[in-house]
C-alpha cells in the first residue's frame, strides 16, 4: 500500500507523541491509584489522618469563604479507579499496535502481563501496598463472563458438533489424567525427594491432588488470546478451544471434591462415587440451565419488533442470568453460558434487526477484549503483590510435570480417538494440541480462593501456579507462532463461503442422510437430519416471529450474501451521490438529467426503440417503490424505523428486475435509433434509481458500523 509509506514519516512522529502521552498518563494514573489505595489500606497512617483532619477542618470553618474549587475524591473513588484501570488497559492495547513490529513477535498477552508487572512494580516502588486487584469475585463474576459469552455466541456450531466426541474426550479424560498424574507424582516427589522436616513433606495427598486439578485445566482466555493471532485451521482451533471450554465442568467438580475432602479429612468410596455422579450433574445441569435461558431469550426476541433499541440488552441479560443461575447451584457456569449463547443465536438473529445484530457483535467483542486485557494486566499486578513462597523443587517439578503430563495425555488419547475418527489427527496436529494447552487466570483465581486454614501451603501453590502460567503464556505463547510456520501447519482459510459451497453442502447432507437410512446405520447425519426436521417443524414456529420462521436456510444465506454485495457496490462504486435529504415522493417525470452525474462510462450505450423505452419506463414505474419518508420525529426511545425489515424481499426482487432490464437493454443493439439524449436519459433513470434506492437505505447501515 504505497499511500501508507508516504505518510509514514509524519505518522511516525505522531505515534511517538502518542506513546509519550500514554506513558505520562500511565505514571499519573499509577500515582493516583497509589494515593487512593493508601487511603483505603492504611487508614491509620498520618497521611490519611491529616487528610481527614483537613476534611473536618473545612467543614467546621463556617466562617471561611465559599469554596469555589473543592477537592472531594472520596465520593468518586471507586468508579474513578475502575475507569482508570479500564482506560489504562485500553490505552495499552492501542499502544502495542502502534509500535511497529512488536505485535508480530510478542503476543499481546505477554505484553499485557509485562505492563501489569511494571504497574505493580511502580506501585510497590512508591512504597504503597499493591491493591489486591485479582479478587476472585471480580474475576469470576465480572471479568470472565464477557469472554465466554463472546466465545459461545460466535461458536462455529458445525465443526464443534462434528468433533464433539474428540473434544469431550480431551476435556474430560485428558483433564482427569493431567490432574491425577501431576497431583500424584507431586505428592511422591514431596514425600520422597525432600527431608521429612521441610515444608514440602507436610503437604498431604489430597492437597496435591487439589493442586493438580487446579493446574491441569487448559484456560480458555489464554487459548483465545494466543490462538487468535496465529490463525491455524479450523479443526485444531475448535479442538483446543472446545477442550478449554468443556473442561470447566471437570475442574469445578474436582476442585469442590478435593476441597471438601481436605476440609473433612476423610475419604470414603461413597464420596468418590458421589463425585462421579456430581460430575454429570454439574455438566448436564449447566447445559440445561443454559438451554433454558437461551430458549427464553429467543422467545423474548420474538416480540421485540416495536422496541428495537433494547434488543441487545436481552441477549446480554439472559446470558448473564444463565451464568449466575448456574453458579448458584455450583453447576458449571461456563457451560451454561456457552449453551445459552449457542442455542439462542439462530433464533435471535432471525428476529432482531440488523442494527441490533451489529450492536451485539461489537459490544461482545468490546467487552471481551477489555476483559481479556484487564485480566492479563491484573495477573501481572497480582504477581508483584504476592504473597509468595518460592520453593525451587516444587516449582520446577510442577512445570516439568505439567508439560510431560500434557504430552503423554494428548498422544495417548489421540491414539484411541483416531480409531473412531474419519479424518485422523496427524502428529503435527497432536503437537499443536499439546503445545496449545495454556494455563491462565482461572487457575490463579481458583488458587486464590483456597482457604488458608485448610491449606497452609497456599503461598507455595500460588507461586507455582503463577510460574506455570508465566511459562505457558510467555514461552509457549511466543514460540507457537514460529513453530506453526516451521511445521507448515494448515492455516485458516480466509475466503467466505460461496453460495456454491452452501448448496452443495446441503445437497451432500441430504445424500448422506439417505445413504445412512438405506444402510440402516443411524449415524451422525441421521440424527442431525432428525434434529433439523424437529427444529423446522416445531421450534422455529415458536421462536421466530412472522414469515421468517418458514424461510429455508438456503434463502436466508442467499439474502445475506446479496446484502453484503449491495453494500460493497455502494462502498466501492457509489459514484453518484444523491443529496441525503430524501424527498418523500419522487415522480419519475420530474427528474432532469443532472450535469454532475454521468452514466457508467464503460458501458456502451445501446440504441433503443421507442417501444422498448416505453416498456422500460412502465416496468420501472410499476416496480420501484416510492422512497419513503424517513424523517420522523426524533424520540430517544425509538430508532428510525429500519427500512430493511419492510423492504428486504422487495429490494432483491427489484434488484433482479433491474439486472434483467439491464441485460435486456444491453442485448438490444439492432433496433432503430432514437436521439442520444433519450438513451442517456433512460440510463440516468436506471442508475439514479438504483443508486438512490440502495444508497439511502444502506447509507444509514454503513454509518452505524
Amino acid at each position, binding site marked *: 500500500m504505497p499511500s501508507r509509506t508516504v505518510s509514514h514519516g509524519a505518522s511516525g512522529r505522531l505515534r511517538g507523541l502518542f506513546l509519550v502521552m500514554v506513558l505520562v498518563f500511565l505514571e499519573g494514573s499509577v500515582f493516583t491509584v497509589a494515593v487512593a489505595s493508601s487511603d483505603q489500606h492504611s487508614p491509620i497512617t498520618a497521611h490519611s489522618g491529616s487528610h481527614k483532619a483537613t476534611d473536618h477542618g473545612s467543614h467546621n470553618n463556617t466562617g471561611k469563604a465559599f469554596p469555589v474549587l473543592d477537592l472531594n475524591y472520596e465520593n468518586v473513588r471507586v468508579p474513578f479507579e475502575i475507569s482508570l484501570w479500564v482506560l489504562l488497559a485500553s490505552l495499552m492495547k492501542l499502544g502495542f499496535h502502534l509500535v511497529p513490529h512488536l505485535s508480530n513477535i510478542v503476543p499481546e498477552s505477554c505484553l499485557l502481563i509485562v505492563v501489569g508487572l511494571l504497574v505493580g512494580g511502580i506501585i510497590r516502588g512508591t512504597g504503597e501496598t499493591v491493591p489486591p486487584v485479582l479478587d476472585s469475585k471480580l474475576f469470576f463474576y465480572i471479568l470472565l463472563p464477557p469472554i465466554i459469552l463472546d466465545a459461545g455466541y460466535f461458536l462455529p456450531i458445525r465443526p464443534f458438533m*462434528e468433533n464433539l466426541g474428540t473434544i469431550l474426550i480431551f476435556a474430560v479424560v485428558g483433564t482427569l489424567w493431567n490432574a491425577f498424574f501431576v497431583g500424584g507424582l507431586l505428592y511422591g516427589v514431596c514425600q520422597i525427594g525432600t527431608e521429612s522436616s521441610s515444608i514440602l513433606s507436610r503437604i498431604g495427598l489430597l492437597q496435591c491432588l487439589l493442586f493438580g486439578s487446579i493446574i491441569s485445566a487448559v484456560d480458555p482466555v489464554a487459548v483465545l488470546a494466543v490462538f487468535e493471532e496465529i490463525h491455524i485451521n479450523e479443526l485444531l482451533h475448535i479442538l483446543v478451544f472446545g477442550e478449554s471450554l468443556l473442561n470447566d465442568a471437570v475442574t469445578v467438580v474436582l476442585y469442590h471434591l478435593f476441597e471438601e475432602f481436605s476440609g473433612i479429612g476423610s475419604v470414603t468410596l461413597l464420596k468418590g462415587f458421589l463425585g462421579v455422579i456430581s460430575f454429570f450433574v454439574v455438566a448436564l445441569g449447566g447445559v440445561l440451565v443454559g438451554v433454558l435461558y437461551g430458549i427464553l431469550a429467543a422467545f423474548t426476541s420474538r416480540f421485540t419488533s416495536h422496541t428495537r433499541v433494547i434488543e441487545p440488552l436481552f441477549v446480554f441479560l439472559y446470558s448473564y442470568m444463565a451464568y449466575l443461575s448456574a453458579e448458584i447451584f455450583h453447576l458449571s457456569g461456563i457451560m451454561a453460558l456457552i449453551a445459552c449463547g449457542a442455542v439462542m443465536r439462530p433464533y435471535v438473529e432471525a428476529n432482531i434487526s440488523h442494527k441490533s445484530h451489529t450492536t451485539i457483535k461489537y459490544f461482545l467483542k468490546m467487552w471481551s477484549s477489555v476483559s481479556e486485557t484487564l485480566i492479563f494486566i491484573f495477573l501481572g499486578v497480582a504477581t508483584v503483590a504476592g504473597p509468595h513462597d518460592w520453593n525451587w523443587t516444587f516449582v520446577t517439578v510442577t512445570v516439568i510435570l505439567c508439560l510431560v503430563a500434557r504430552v503423554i495425555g494428548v498422544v495417548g488419547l489421540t491414539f484411541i480417538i483416531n480409531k*473412531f475418527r*474419519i*479424518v*485422523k489427527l496427524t502428529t503435527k496436529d497432536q503437537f499443536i494440541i499439546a503445545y496449545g494447552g495454556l494455563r491462565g487466570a482461572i487457575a490463579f483465581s481458583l488458587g486464590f480462593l483456597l482457604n488458608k486454614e485448610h491449606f497452609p501451603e497456599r503461598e507455595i501453590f500460588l507461586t507455582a501456579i503463577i510460574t506455570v502460567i508465566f511459562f505457558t503464556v510467555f514461552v509457549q505463547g511466543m514460540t507457537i507462532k514460529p513453530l506453526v510456520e516451521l511445521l507448515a501447519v494448515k492455516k485458516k*482459510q480466509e*475466503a467466505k463461503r*460461496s*453460495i*456454491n*459451497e452452501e*448448496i*452443495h*453442502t*446441503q*445437497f*451432500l447432507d*441430504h*445424500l*448422506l*442422510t*439417505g*445413504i*445412512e*437410512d*438405506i*444402510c*440402516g*446405520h443411524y*449415524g*451422525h*447425519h*441421521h440424527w442431525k*437430519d432428525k434434529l433439523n*426436521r424437529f427444529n423446522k417443524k416445531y421450534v422455529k414456529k415458536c421462536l421466530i416471529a412472522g414469515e421468517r420462521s*418458514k424461510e*429455508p436456510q*438456503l*434463502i436466508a444465506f*442467499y439474502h445475506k*450474501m446479496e446484502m453484503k454485495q449491495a453494500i460493497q457496490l455502494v462502498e466501492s462504486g457509489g459514484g453518484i451521490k444523491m443529496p441525503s435529504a430524501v424527498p418523500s415522493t419522487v415522480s419519475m417525470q420530474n427528474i432532469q438529467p443532472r450535469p454532475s452525474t454521468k452514466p457508467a462510462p464503460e458501458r456502451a450505450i445501446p440504441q433503443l426503440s421507442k417501444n422498448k423505452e416505453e416498456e422500460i419506463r412502465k416496468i420501472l414505474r410499476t416496480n420501484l417503490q416510492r422512497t419513503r419518508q424517513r424523517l420522523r420525529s426524533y424520540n430517544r426511545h425509538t430508532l428510525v424505523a429500519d427500512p430493511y425489515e419492510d423492504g428486504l424481499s422487495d429490494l*432483491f*426482487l427489484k434488484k*433482479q428486475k433491474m439486472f434483467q432490464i439491464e441485460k435486456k437493454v444491453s442485448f438490444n443493439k439492432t433496433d432503430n435509433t432514437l436521439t442520444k439524449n433519450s438513451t442517456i436519459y433512460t440510463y440516468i433513470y436506471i442508475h439514479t434509481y438504483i443508486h438512490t434506492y440502495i444508497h439511502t437505505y444502506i447509507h444509514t447501515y454503513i454509518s452505524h458500523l
Partner: protein
Amino acid sequence: MGSRASRLLREEEIEEIKKETGFSHSQITRLYSRFTSLDKGENGTLSREDFQRIPELAINPLGDRIINAFFPEGYFVLVIFREDQVNFRGFMRTLAHFRPIEDNEKNKNPATEPLNSRTNKLLFAFRLYDLDRDDKISRDELLQVLRMMVGVNISDEQLGSIADRTIQEADTNGDSCISFNEFIKVLEKVDVEQKMSIRFLH
C-alpha cells in the same frame, strides 16, 4: 429366517466384493443382512419399491435420485435406461463410494483409483445433479435440485436468481453450465473426504 431359505453369501463372493470395493469381511456380512431385510420379495435383488419402503427416504428431498443411483444403467440401442433390479454386488458397488478413505489408499496410481477416492465420490454426487448425463449441470437441472431442497414456498424468480448466481460463481469457461472440473474446483475447500464418508461400523 423364514422357510424359504435366504441365500447365504458364499466365501468367493465375499472375496470378490472385498477386492472390488475394499469393505472388510464383517462389514460385508453386516450389509448383506441389511440387504436381505430390505429384500421383501426374497429373490436376491432389490426393486425400487423395496427402497421406497424405507420411511426416512420418503421424506428425503433427494430420495428418488438416490434410489435411482443404485440401479445400474443398461444400454439398449443407444437409449440409456435403468434396470429395475439391483443385486447385492451392485448394492455394494454403490455403497463403496461412501467408504472412508484410508491413508494407505492415498497416492495410488490414479488409473486404478478405488471407488471411494475423492474424485469418484465427487463424480457420484455430480451424477445426481446431472440427470441427462451430458457431463454438465445446466441451469434447469440446478433449478430442479434447488426446488427439491427448498420446498414449495419460494417463488420461481428467486430460485432462478439463486441458480444464476451459482452458475455465475462456478462457471469459468463461460458456457453457463457447470462442468465436472468446475464442480471439483468449487468444492476444493470442502472436506469431501469427511463429508462423503460413512463410518461403517465393524
